[in-house]
C-alpha cells in the first residue's frame, strides 16, 4: 500500500516538474516567453508581408531563472494576465486590464494566515511610501511578483538575506528613473547621506536598510512601516547593546535562530553578537567579573595582613 502511494506521489511530482520545465525552463517554446525572455523578438507583419525583428522593451524582459526560483513559479502567465495576450500584436486595451493585487489572492485565506497579509497592508498604509504615492504604491513596487522568493524565511545565511532585502530597496533608491516616477524628485546619493555611519560598507553588507528605517512591530516578521529619514535609527547603541533591536528584526527568523542554536560552541560564545567585545558572550562576561572580584578580594586580604603585621 505504502509503495503504491510513494509511486503515485513520485509520478505526480515528476509530472508537475515536467509542466514547469515546459513553461519556464524552456522559454523558447513558451507562447509568451519566446519573446519576453529575449532582448529582441521577431514576427511576421501581415500588412507588409515581411519578417520583422525588433528590440524588446527592457522593462518587459523577464528573467526565467528567477521566475522558476520564485514563489509563483507554478503559475503560468495567463493565470494572472489575460489570455488575449497570446495574440500578437497585443490589443492596446489590454493595458487597461485590472491585475490582481496580492491581497486579492492572499487576503482572508487561512492557508496564508501565517504571513499576515492584512496586517502588512495596514503597516504599509502608515509608511512613507504610502504617504507619497497612495494606493498606487502596491506590494509589487518592492516585491516583484514574477521573481519574489521568501529568502528571509528560508535562507540560513544572514548575508544572503541582507543582500536580497537591500536589493529590493535599491531597485528604486539606486535607480534615478524609478525613484523619480514615485517621488517626483531625484534620488539622494545613498553613500553621501549615510556618510555619518562608521564602516558604511560593512553595515550595508551585514544589516538590512529596514533595520534602521522601519518601526519594529513584534507581531510581524518584517515591519512594513517604512519611516521617513527623520525617524530612522541613528544611535549606535540601538543595535550595539545587549538589548539590540536586531534581535527583534534581522535575528527574529526561526531559521537564523536555529542555526545559532545548533552551532555547539557558538551557543556558549555568541548570544548577542552585536554587543561590543567579550560581553557579547555571557560566559566570558561572568568569567571576567569573577576574575575582577577575585583580584580585588586578594588585594583587600593582602592589605589587611600588611596592616595587621606592621
Amino acid at each position, binding site marked *: 500500500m505504502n509503495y503504491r502511494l510513494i509511486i503515485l506521489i513520485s509520478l505526480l511530482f515528476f509530472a508537475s516538474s515536467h509542466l514547469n520545465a515546459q513553461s519556464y525552463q524552456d522559454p523558447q517554446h513558451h507562447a509568451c516567453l519566446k519573446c519576453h525572455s529575449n532582448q529582441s523578438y521577431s514576427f511576421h507583419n501581415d500588412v507588409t508581408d515581411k519578417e520583422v525583428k525588433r528590440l524588446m522593451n527592457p522593462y518587459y524582459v523577464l528573467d526565467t531563472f528567477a521566475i522558476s526560483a520564485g514563489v509563483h513559479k507554478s503559475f503560468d502567465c495567463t493565470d494572472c494576465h489575460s489570455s488575449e495576450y497570446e495574440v500578437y500584436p497585443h490589443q492596446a486595451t489590454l493595458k487597461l486590464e485590472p491585475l490582481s493585487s496580492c491581497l486579492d489572492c492572499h487576503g482572508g485565506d487561512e492557508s496564508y494566515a501565517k504571513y499576515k497579509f492584512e496586517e502588512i497592508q495596514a503597516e504599509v498604509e502608515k509608511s512613507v511610501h504610502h504617504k507619497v504615492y497612495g494606493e498606487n504604491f502596491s506590494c509589487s513596487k518592492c516585491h516583484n511578483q514574477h521573481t519574489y522568493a521568501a529568502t528571509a524565511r528560508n535562507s540560513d545565511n544572514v548575508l544572503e538575506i541582507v543582500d536580497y532585502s537591500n536589493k529590493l530597496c535599491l531597485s528604486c533608491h539606486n535607480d534615478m528613473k524609478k525613484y523619480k516616477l514615485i517621488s517626483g524628485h531625484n534620488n539622494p546619493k545613498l553613500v553621501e547621506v549615510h556618510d555619518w555611519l*562608521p*564602516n558604511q*560598507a*560593512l553595515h550595508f553588507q551585514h544589516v538590512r536598510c529596514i533595520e534602521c528605517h522601519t518601526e519594529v512591530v513584534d507581531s510581524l516578521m518584517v515591519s512594513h512601516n517604512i519611516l521617513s529619514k527623520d525617524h530612522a535609527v541613528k*544611535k*549606535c*547603541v540601538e543595535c*550595539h*547593546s*545587549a538589548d539590540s533591536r536586531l534581535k527583534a528584526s534581522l535575528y527574529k527568523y526561526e531559521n537564523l535562530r536555529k542555526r545559532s542554536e545548533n*552551532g555547539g*560552541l*557558538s551557543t556558549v*560564545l*555568541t548570544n548577542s*553578537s552585536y*554587543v*561590543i*567585545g*567579550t*560581553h*557579547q*558572550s555571557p560566559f*566570558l562576561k561572568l568569567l*571576567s567579573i569573577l*576574575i*575582577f572580584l577575585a*583580584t*580585588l578580594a586578594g*588585594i583587600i586580604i*593582602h*592589605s589587611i*595582613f*600588611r596592616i595587621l*603585621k606592621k
Partner: protein
Amino acid sequence: MAATEKIYFYPLWLRIWHGINALGIIVLIVTGISMQSSMETSVIGFSLVVKLHNIAGVVVTLGYIVFFVGNLVTSNGKYYLIKIKGFIKQPIKQALYYSWGMFHGMKAPFPLSEKRKFNPLQKIFYVVVMYLAVPGVIITGFALLFPEIIIEKVYDFSGVFVTAIFHSALGFFISIFLVIHLYIASIGKSPLENYKSIITGWHHI
C-alpha cells in the same frame, strides 16, 4: 652601603612614556567598559566614547613604539631579559615572599640593585604585558579600526567577532594587570615611595 642609597632607575624618556601610557590606558579601559555596556548619556554619547577610545589607542600605540625602540637603543632593555635558569623557581620564590615571607619578617629574596630593576615575578608579568598583551591589543585594535581587512570567517565565527573577543579579553587582562601593578607599587620602603620614584626617577634602596 648606606640605607639611603638611591638609584636613578627611571630616565626621563621612560617617565614621560610611562605617564602618557598610563593616561592612555586608563582612558582606554574606561571607554572600553563603557562601550561594552553600551552606556549612553546625554553628556557623553556612544560615538564620542568610540572616538576617545580610537584616539587613546593611537596615542598608546605611538607610545609603545617609543617604549620598544627606547628599550632597544638604551640600556633599559636589559632589565627585561629573562634567563632560563630559575625561570620557574625564582618567580615562585618571590610570590611566596609576597604571600608569606613579608608577613614573617623575611627579607626580599631579590633585592633591587643597578643590575636588577625588577624582581623575577615582576619581570615575567612586565614581559608578558609589554611584549605579548600590548602588541596583541594594538594589532587587534587596529584591525577593528579598519574592519574591512579582517578575514570574513574563522571556521564558523565571523572574523570581526573573533577579533573583538581577543581585543577585549587582552584589554581585560591589561586592566587586571593595572590593578595589581598599582597595588604592588605600594609595597615599598613606605607605601608612597614607589609612586614618588616613577615621578622623580630616583629609587631608594
